[in-house]
């Protein structure tokens, strides 16, 4: 938190935007807190004031879109989508240590399958969603085949290539994806027969999914599966010698990660009502990796925090125009020098 304050210090003078940014951090920490509270496998006695605090934080999170105005609500929705995406990438890179640089591909697959299923096949958002998730999970599973034999930098290169292949296919397969023109008129979700296309609705929808994603990823992190992933990241040979089927768990990590990327993609397509290959470039993959590194690799609250900062900071700094990306880059470099473990340190205290 201190570091976050320090990072945003130079910009505090600029408009109310900076205040909003800080306010947002507080609001979204509701989710962090919630997952902390409910994500535990063994529920310890929650002190009364923590519960009170959680309740007090839910209110601003719920009230946020009503107070912040359309522009920042819009940014918050995007931030939520990135949180889900980053949580998925975190399973692959943060937990399992598989340096995957083509995650935008799964994000794109999720977005495109949602777009195609809803526009071409006429499915609704809710019936297209499970199909999309299954599809992207399978894509993650399939990529695991070539990636399994590779470690470290070699894996990074292969996944980078994979990301580009998917983007090029989306760009060139005109008859299906309509090429660079993209797919437009993607319908909004319906609930009980009502089309819910408003911004506020998307805010709550995405927030709900962010909560589910954080909750699930956190739980899996502290389970037998999560430990197996961590062991593979730490030392693959030793993990294998301890009885872990490393092949199987790498498959699982890639599918599980792709699952969340698919969810993020589907939400993105539905929110924008439009998808085009431009949204899923290599830079996008790099951007997601930056989020998890900035926030604190392998830490769920850290990843959430990192995503929020990387989505909101450029918006808040919009006044600087061209310089904002420079400032962001400089910020990242400084982070790597002074706090390489990320904003949120991994908590290794055990629940018991």
């Amino acid at each position, binding site marked *: 938190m201190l570091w976050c304050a320090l990072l945003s210090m130079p910009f505090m003078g600029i408009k109310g935007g900076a205040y909003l940014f800080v306010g947002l951090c507080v609001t979204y920490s509701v989710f962090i807190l919630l997952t902390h509270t409910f994500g535990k*496998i*063994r529920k310890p006695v929650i002190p009364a004031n923590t519960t009170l605090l959680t309740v007090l934080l839910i209110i601003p999170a719920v009230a946020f879109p009503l107070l912040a105005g359309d522009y920042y609500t819009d940014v918050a929705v995007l931030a939520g989508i990135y949180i889900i995406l980053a949580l998925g990438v975190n399973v692959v890179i943060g937990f399992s240590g598989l340096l995957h640089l083509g995650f935008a591909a799964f994000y794109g697959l999720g977005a495109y399958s949602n777009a195609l299923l809803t526009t071409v096949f006429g499915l609704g958002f809710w019936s297209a969603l499970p199909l999309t998730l299954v599809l992207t999970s399978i894509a993650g599973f399939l990529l695991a085949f070539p990636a399994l034999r590779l470690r470290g930098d070699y894996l990074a290169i292969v996944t980078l290539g994979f990301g580009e292949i998917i983007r090029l296919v989306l760009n060139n397969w005109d008859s299906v994806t309509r090429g660079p023109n993209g797919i437009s008129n993607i319908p909004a979700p319906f609930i009980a027969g009502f089309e819910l296309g408003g911004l506020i609705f998307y805010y709550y929808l995405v927030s709900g999914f962010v909560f589910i994603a954080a909750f*699930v990823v956190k*739980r*899996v992190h502290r*389970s*037998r*599966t*999560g*430990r*197996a992933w*961590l*062991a593979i990241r*730490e*030392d693959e*040979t*030793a*993990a*294998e*010698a*301890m*009885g*872990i*089927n*490393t092949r199987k768990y790498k498959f*699982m990590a890639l599918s*599980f990660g792709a699952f969340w990327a698919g969810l993020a993609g589907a939400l993105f397509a539905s929110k924008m009502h439009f998808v085009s290959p431009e949204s899923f470039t290599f830079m996008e993959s790099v951007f997601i990796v930056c989020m998890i590194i900035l926030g604190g690799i392998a830490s769920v609250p850290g990843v959430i925090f990192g995503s929020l900062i990387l989505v909101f900071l450029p918006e808040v700094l919009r006044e600087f125009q061209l310089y904002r990306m420079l400032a962001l880059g400089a910020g990242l470099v400084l982070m790597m020098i002074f706090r390489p473990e990320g904003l949120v340190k*991994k908590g*290794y*205290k*055990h629940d*018991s």
Partner: protein
Amino acid sequence: MILEVRDLTKTFGGLKAIEEVSFRVRHGIILSIIGPNGAGKTTLFNCLTGILPPTKGRILFENEDISKKKAYEISAGGIARTFQNIRVFGSMSVLENVMIGQHSRSREGLFTAILGTGRFIREEDEIRSKALEYLEFAGIRDYADTLAENLPYGDRKRLEIARALAAEPRLLLLDEPAAGMNPQETLELMDLINRIREWGKTVIIIEHDMKVVMGISDWIIVLDHGVKIAEGTPGEIQNNPYVIEAYLGKEEVF
């Protein structure tokens, strides 16, 4: 016989790391494998645990051929090991390290974990309490919440042993457990290995420290240049001319 190795050969390109090595290990003993550096001791361990596939030969563990099995299957089947260059999971806690040892003795998957079912919680509790027992046994329970990479050297070796024990093996392979330990730590280690044997487990160790080898072994196998040159009780090995030659060089007569 818990383990029987028949004509085991492992070659790396043209280099013969192990050549036609055969031996048998009786149940419940402590067997030491000694030999000069590069004799093929660690390669032998790697073949026994499935980390390297043997080029030729058979490995029978409890009368079952395991020479084609994968490392994780062998570990689940009852052989656990430690490594010469310590391989603890550095950025995980000591307790988590040992909990990973229980991997093949537990089964709950992704979905029960997400739902947090009763069965999942019970299994987690069981894994945790067992892991704590193994830490207690190895004498490092106080460090349960410490990061493994922050442990002192000797305790990291103990952690590796605790982690291997958590896999509930019937045969435990220790690769140079006493390397880099001071005399006091070495004594404690010998006591630990003896306690593991008393627990009914068979132990094979690779060791250079002759005080340890002669002090706890029931049987010793000597490797040199990938070939078994002698085996016997500690007393026999100490007086074996081939062994002396391998270690000290041939006596030149002018």
